[in-house]
């Protein structure tokens, strides 16, 4: 994989005030043209899972149903991620435009933003922006409405099927898949559910065309990505960067000169130690192979003053609380991992117990019902394997 140099971009946050024009342009295009544009742009879901957006829209469009929905997932709960909030504050129109385009293609009359409870303070401004957008839709005679649904403090509701359950008045417990949301989503109707940033990117593609987007990034990771940078950095914040950078380049730009590890992708992501910075590339391709890491955009930098035991302990406490609790590996597994590292640290269990915990994490990865339980192993294994001494002494 060719390595791209880190580059700060300004596609997403450029406030262009031409929503009406772009919307009109989109509405006059054929559905096929839009889907083809999205597919050839290489845009993939920016929530972290990386499903090709154009394909998702196409699959939902192909479903036969009298009711379909487009839902914008703004339940940004992954520790270390705050980019969606920034997008909703600065360029909400782009998100609405993406939703309207999707509605046109799949045939939805109604769309929702699932806004996490922690972001309730954004609601007033968002509603105002939506009202203005509705006027644009009316001018174009396009029958589509966007509503806001507020979350109430549950990380798991960022999982798409848990989000639907939550909207339907239930506990936010992930469903079995299949069926997938494109077949049976909200109200068991075909549903497109996209991350805030993904929808905003569609705007850039509609406006600047496929090539501008495609030329950014590498191989299977096209376009730019908004990163949430936090931790031991002199310049924490939101940055739009190109895919394909090495972690080394990233740390050189953002670290405080003493970075010993970077957590890529939040608590459910991977911890990369200093010795692997050079070999690690940020992008979708080679998912889980160890040389390239997908991410929802969270980059947490830890310098050498930090105890990686404390970091892992904090993550595990988070998972123990935020697991929905329905499936065995996740509900019980997270508790065992947390208690286990505590007991090893206190010397109540031998250090060899960590191997049993690594094995448990692997079991969770291959047997848990949803992404939460499956991805606990990411941070657990990468921290325990790379910082074993810190776990014991």
């Amino acid at each position, binding site marked *: 994989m060719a390595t791209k140099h880190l580059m700060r971009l300004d596609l997403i946050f450029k406030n262009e005030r031409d929503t009406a024009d772009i919307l009109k342009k989109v509405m006059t295009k054929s559905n096929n043209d839009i889907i083809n544009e999205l597919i050839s742009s290489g845009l993939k879901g920016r929530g972290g899972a990386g499903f090709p957006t154009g394909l998702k829209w196409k699959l939902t469009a192909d479903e036969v149903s009298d009711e379909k929905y487009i839902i914008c997932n703004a339940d940004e709960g992954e520790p270390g991620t705050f980019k969606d909030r920034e997008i909703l504050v600065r360029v909400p129109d782009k998100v609405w435009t993406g939703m309207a385009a999707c509605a046109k293609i799949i045939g939805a009359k109604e769309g929702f933003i699932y806004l996490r409870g922690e972001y309730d303070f954004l609601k007033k401004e968002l509603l105002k922006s939506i009202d203005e957008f509705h006027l644009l839709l009316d001018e174009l005679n396009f029958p589509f409405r966007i509503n806001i649904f507020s979350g109430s403090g*549950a990380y*798991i509701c960022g999982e798409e099927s848990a989000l639907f359950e939550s909207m339907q008045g239930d*506990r936010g*417990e992930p469903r*079995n898949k*299949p069926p997938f949301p494109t077949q049976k989503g909200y109200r068991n109707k075909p549903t497109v559910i996209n991350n805030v940033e993904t929808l905003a990117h569609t705007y850039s593609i509609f406006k600047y065309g496929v090539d501008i987007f495609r030329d950014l990034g590498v191989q299977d990771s096209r376009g730019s990505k908004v990163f949430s940078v936090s931790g031991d950095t002199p310049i924490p914040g939101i940055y739009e960067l190109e895919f394909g950078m090495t972690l080394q380049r990233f740390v050189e730009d953002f670290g405080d000169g003493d970075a010993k590890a970077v957590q890529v992708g939040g608590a459910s992501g991977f911890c990369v130690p200093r010795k692997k910075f050079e070999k690690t590339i940020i992008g979708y391709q080679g998912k889980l192979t160890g040389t390239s890491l997908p991410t929802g955009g969270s980059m947490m930098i830890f310098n050498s003053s930090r105890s990686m035991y404390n970091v892992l302990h904090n993550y595990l406490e988070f*998972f*123990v*609380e*935020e*697991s*929905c*609790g*329905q*499936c*065995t*590996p996740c*509900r*019980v*597994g*997270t*508790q*065992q991992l947390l*208690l*286990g590292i505590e*007991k090893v640290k206190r010397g109540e269990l031998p250090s060899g117990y960590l191997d*049993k915990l690594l*094995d*448990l994490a692997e*079991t969770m*990865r*291959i*047997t*848990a*019902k949803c992404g939460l339980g*499956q991805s606990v192993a990411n941070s657990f294994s990468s921290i325990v394997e790379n910082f074993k001494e810190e776990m014991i002494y």
Partner: protein
Amino acid sequence: MTTKVNCKIDNISVSVEQGTTILEAAKKINIKVPTLCYHEDLCVAGNCRVCIVEQVGTDRLLPSCATPVAEGMEIITNSLRVRNARKRIIELLISEHNADCTKCFKNTKCELQSLASEYIFNDEGFINLVPYKNYKEVHLSPSISKDDSKCIRCQRCVRTCSELQDISALTVAYKGANMKISTFFEKPMYEVVCTNCGQCVNRCPTGALVERSYIDQVWDAIYDSKKHVVVQTAPAVRIALGESFGLPPGAIVTGQMVAALKRLGFDSVLDTDFSADLTIMEEGAELLNRLRMSLKENDTTVRFPMATSCSPGWVKFMEHAYPEYLDNLSSAKSPQQMFGALAKTYYARKRNIDPKNIVSVSVMPCTAKKYEANRPEMHASGYKDVDYVVTTRELAMMIKQAGIDFLALPEDDYDSLMGESSGAGVIFGATGGVMEAALRTVYELVTGREVPFEHLNILPVRGMESVKEASIVINNPLPEWDFLDGVELKTCVAHGLSNAKMIMEKVKRGEVNYHFIEVMACPGGCIGGGGQPIPTNYVIRKKRTDAIYSEDEGKPIRKSHENPEIKMVYDDFLKEPLGHKSHKLLHTHYTPRNRY
């Protein structure tokens, strides 16, 4: 038209209908995949993860209960990866479970225990989480005991309570490590809308939900020489008890059961079927009385449809959910309570025993009967009419405790006085049975002729359909009933409380005009009761039902009003249905209850 899909499971090719799960496909070719949260009667949850299997070429394992077969799939149910992962998952469940197996009611009957026995677990398991859990005390109701420390959160009970019964007294509460199965605000079971039907008990894989046991109290009574202990056995016990001794579902063991009860030391072994016949006399008379008041005397306060009241789960459901319809319930007590009231009055007098020395025990396919016996109004005899209720399962335990070789027992007969019954009393055990029994008697009382069905078998009210409707037109009645001439008697039969709710909503909306409805709280009626041998599923319930009807066919007397002991109890004691004494002993009232 159904599409077929082909796959290979453990290298064996199998072709199944589209939508079939891997688990079902494996079962078809006799490959057993272990399960815990899966239950044939319920929707798929896919949360225990015990049934995981490997798809060749796929990184993650698949829950076989929740994954439909796809064309060309290659599945391995027992690869090393699967075995190791499954072992870990069982270990996790055990770490959260109060594995005090030798002190558990479900010892040797626990699905988690038997799953664990297939793997070797040693002391190197995970950390025992039970001490960290702050499990509350065991929640008791007169019927059901709920012990959270033994719960594995499979949610079978929650799905049972919502899908089969539409009650949702149990729910999943909190999340993460604190997630638990809970009642409303974690109140005790006896305070909430729970109808005590025990369907959750039937489906709980562990000892988390079990019946409240009265075995010890019954033994104490039996061994107390001053006490005269009478026992009654419900219709559905005799066709299910055998399952606890390895017989196939539907085996009829009436004679062995009676013999076993005598060996256990009961002083008199009598039959609830007798009082089922009595129920028909009283309930039938009540129905005719309501019809007379409504049609002849134009009394507009008479409530229709009249509803049966023998299922205590259904009665409690009405008290919680439809308090404004309590007058629709027949005031006739259930057979168990009629029996209890007579045991300490009629029976005591006839046998010349001081009722205070009588201990009245009933063996029921039901957990709700335990609650019913404990209702404060059930003291018509001046004493607690039914002292202890044990389930079919508890009776099986008592027989085993006594060292009785059940299968080798010679058949014996019920004792007399309250031991004789008609086939109509027997079919009380199946959905539609009370209706059929009532129609056999009511029609004949009114017309002087037998019901116009071949061999008295009223087939339209039989079977496992969730709701059955039937009507009979009354022609040429006896002069006393001339106001019923040409009247079409409309009836409806439902089993399972979700179906009951559906019917009641229709009644509420005025969409139906039934005269008489029969509701049994449990799927299939009492044969599927919450006190019956575990497991339960559609096939088992069907076989038990068939057995009930064959027991009926074999009876020389098939109609309640022809039971000689029934005639005798009216001649010698009660005088007439709905009479003064009947009213005092055999009828009851109901209590509106809260909504949670």
